[in-house]
């Protein structure tokens, strides 16, 4: 068992565990914090896979932006109390059943599939440095890149629309 595998296992364990804790925590703030840890461990996976740039971006976007947004909302709504009543048993049962089912089904499918034999290809070319990523993103993926801006624009207009108070005219 190589070091890398051990690192992977540890990281994976942390990821799964914190993900679970996110869901099981009664306090939303705790959930958010566990989620941050989870995201960090995923960033760790990225680093493990040697995609440093992505790892950094991931931390900035998720832990930096999205999680702050979550926390902000939680604070805004004053939800940091553990006041949530548990869902009725049937719902929890349903949740567990579907968790097991989807896990089982997908895992079985993948286990049943032909195992990949032999070495993984390794061209040795650089494919994930900032330089390369930048080139791909702004050459080949220029249109989706621009289109993503439309997406963000829509989201922006949308949030404005949803929270804008109407001026009563006339």
């Amino acid at each position: 068992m190589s070091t890398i595998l051990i690192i992977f296992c540890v990281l994976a364990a942390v990821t799964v565990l914190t993900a679970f804790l996110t869901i099981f925590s009664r306090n939303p703030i705790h959930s958010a914090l566990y989620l941050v840890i989870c995201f960090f461990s995923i960033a760790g996976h990225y680093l493990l896979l040697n995609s440093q740039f992505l790892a950094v971006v991931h931390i900035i976007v998720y832990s930096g932006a999205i999680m702050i947004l979550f926390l902000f909302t939680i604070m805004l709504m004053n939800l940091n109390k553990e006041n949530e009543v548990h869902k009725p048993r049937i719902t929890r049962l349903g949740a567990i059943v579907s968790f097991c089912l989807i896990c089982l089904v997908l895992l079985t499918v993948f286990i049943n599939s032909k195992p990949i034999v032999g070495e993984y290809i390794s061209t040795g070319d650089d494919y994930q440095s900032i330089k390369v990523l930048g080139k791909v993103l702004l050459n080949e993926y220029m249109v989706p890149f621009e289109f993503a801006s439309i997406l963000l624009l829509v989201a922006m207009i949308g949030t404005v629309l949803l929270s804008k108070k109407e001026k009563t005219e006339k």
Partner: protein
Amino acid sequence: MNTLIAIIGLGVLCLLFEIFELRKAIVPITIIGLLAVLGLNISEFNSPQSYYNNMIIVSKFSTAFSGLFIILTVFLVALSHKVYENHQTKISDYIAIKVFLLAGTVAMVSFGNLAMFFLGIEVLSIALYILAASNRLSIKSNEAGLKYFLMGSFASGIILFGICLIYGAMGTFDVTEISELSRSAELPVWFPIGIVLVTIGMFFKIAAVPFHFWAPDVYEGSPALTTALMSTLAKVVAIATLFKLLAVMNAEVSSSFQIVVVIISMASMTVGNIMALRQVNVKRMLAYSGISHAGFMLMTLLSVTNAAGSLLYYTSAYALAGIAAFSVILYVCKNTENEDITNFHGLGKTNPLLAAILTASLLSMAGIPIFAGFFAKMVLFNQTIQAGYIALVIVAVVNSIISVGYYFKLILAMYTKEPNEARTGTPFVIYAVAIIAIVLNIALGLFPSLVLDLLA
């Protein structure tokens, strides 16, 4: 490609108009702009080409459907004029979102790369979440928005997972490459699973059973105009995209997958129609009706190689009838709290023209000749029988019969009940939209070849 750029430009223009305080001009300008875009789109019809490293592939299929989307958007924007009269400060936002949504839809049918597909679908979804929740003081609208959002993001997750698996199998996002690869080498199981997951995500978008549960709730809760958009444009886009996805990526859909499609199609029709029977809310009823129509549209997936024309025809017929129906609903339920069937009582007396239009559109949906809905069904049945699924056609026929039950409930309410309130005002725009939509529908019925042969 030019269409897409022009649409985005138009969207930005809308935002600018807000800045320059030209709110009154937004709707007319947008309509004119969209018509211009339609012209541009038609000009691209005969010049299939791919742009920017295959990101966008303009084909007959994509232009034809884009044309349909643009026409539908024109109608929807025109209807906005009246609906958002009292929301002047927001009108540019609404219109801009709709125009961007159109951009998303165009991207969805003309994608050449799964990234475009994904972004397109997200633009569409996010715009729809916003529109569904846009009546922010109404709890129903909020609920609709949240439900749609939760389930929609869930579905997005599934789609993303599917795309990821496809990438894992192929190492590329480019559909032409995927298509070539899928024919040649032996593939890891990831690829079919990916396809299936993406398909399921799209099933959700077109509201096929058992992924349909969101539709009635969201349709009911959303503002009527948004419901109109969802039940016409969004559904049509989703099925067109799914069709394209399956058509482009793997030439032959496996037989067991076809059986899945058959079962889902049957289930959608049956559940949709039977559930619609006892609805009192018209929007909810049309949601169920939309589910059943989704079942019908799924029949095209059984013969992806040659069903593009009939899909275009079916979607046009359905969407045009839907637009006509919804414009009447908008008129009738303008000042009411809900869209219950009681509001339609006596419409045949108070406003015979609109009643006639609603009747016509419902008849079209039910598949009565000479409306386009009939030919749509006929062509579909023809193709499905050709593909060898006569059992599916029989189920479809039985469902057509059931569907008459609830469509006629509405018609009966209009013609046999006494009106419970006097209706005033004859908004020109609603008349115009309703009449043009239904006339287009009948014209399609009279000359089906116009559309059917378009993608031959």
